[in-house]
């Protein structure tokens, strides 16, 4: 039972093959998310190349033992100003866009009724990304901020420290990137042109 006209319209569109498969809001937030995600991946990789070494706990530097060292060069040391600026700009867009998507998604029962076309593994992966990995990325990102942890120290201490937060942030980014690869592969297998067109125009 839809409890608002908007939700009813949304549900109807989901079930009628001739009508739009995705609402305009889902389509717009999808592409804004695509853009901001690419911004985050590119800038995140640039920041990584300033120090591709990871630690556990509060501190870590070239003179202390690492948790793991990536086989990447320290090539962007002192040159990641643009990477940081792009990362935070993209993060703001990604978070605000994501909030709009989640809030409207709940209003339209998108997460309960809009999933009929997907199998349970797809649904699970999707839910893990939206409600698991994304909040973890925001949390660990903020836990690296000395300004934010001055207000909410637990953001860092619950994870074991600032460097632990950085390491989890990196692991979460890898998981999200893996999800992206699987997601794009699935779209290719299901018919790339048709599905991309559907996500742009709303019609299959």
């Amino acid at each position: 039972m839809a409890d608002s006209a908007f939700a009813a319209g949304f549900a109807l569109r989901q079930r009628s093959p001739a009508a739009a498969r995705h609402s305009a809001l889902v389509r717009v937030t999808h592409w804004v998310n695509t853009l901001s995600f690419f911004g985050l991946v590119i800038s995140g990789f640039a920041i990584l190349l300033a120090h591709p070494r990871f630690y556990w706990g509060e501190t870590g530097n070239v003179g202390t033992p690492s948790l793991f060292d990536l086989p990447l060069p320290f090539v962007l040391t002192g040159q990641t100003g643009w990477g940081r600026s792009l990362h935070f700009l993209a993060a703001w867009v990604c978070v605000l866009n994501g909030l709009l998507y989640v809030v409207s998604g709940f209003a339209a029962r998108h997460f309960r009724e809009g999933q009929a076309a997907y199998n349970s593994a797809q649904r699970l992966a999707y839910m893990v990304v939206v409600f698991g990995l994304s909040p973890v990325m925001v949390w660990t990102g903020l836990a690296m901020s000395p300004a934010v942890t001055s207000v909410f120290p637990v953001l860092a201490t619950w994870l074991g420290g600032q460097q632990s937060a950085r390491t989890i942030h990196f692991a979460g980014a890898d998981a999200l990137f893996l999800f992206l690869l699987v997601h794009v592969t699935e779209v290719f297998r299901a018919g790339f042109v048709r599905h991309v067109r559907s996500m742009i125009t709303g019609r299959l």
Partner: protein
Amino acid sequence: MTRRKLITTGLAGAAGVSGLAIAARLAARYGLVPPDSGGIYGVGETLTYGAQKLLMARHSLAREFDRSQITNFVPVDGHPPQNETYQRLRAGKFAEWRLKIDGLVARPALLSLAQLKSCPRRTQITHQACEEGWSFIAEWTGVPLSFLLNMAGVQARARYVVYFALDDSWDSIDMPEALHPQTLLAYERNGEELPPDYGAPLRMKVPRQLGYKNVKFLSRITVTDTLKNIRNGQGSISPDYGYSWYAGI
């Protein structure tokens, strides 16, 4: 598109634009806009600075640590200036060095290291992260910047404190950050005199921001109401290297 929808969309758009304009005015009025707010990245910088300023409005304290957590090895990032002035001052154990305090203050001052050490001191064990990703914990002792500012008598219209080093480095912080109890002019590190590699004779400690705001080898502090007419006009040497003025994250 129906006429009704067109009008609704138009009204919503106009409300959005004027809402943004009002928000921008209010943000500027309450000091929530950083000096490097221009350009596409400026949007992100402004959102971050504004949001974090609101979050820290109650003067939150940076996390402090136990002595046992002090990092043994800390890489030297930024070696002592090679210029003749610094070498001469260093050879004389900084006896001839002075900290100049000027700008929008009632009583400009020229202070020796001995005078600074006779001021009330504060010791804190804080975490410092480099924007590259590495970090360390160290103990710092120094005089709170707020003490010197109160001594010099800051004028009401002051908005920023700018600090200059004996090399070409310089930076600035806003007044709430300058008056924050953990903002120190440090002359000791881990209980010992500050070594030249780590900023002798005096360095800034701003533990709620990243490492690069903690300028070493200080020589001058200027209180100002605008950053526009100081060097690049963006409040810091960092924008010359592509880095943002505000470094709370």
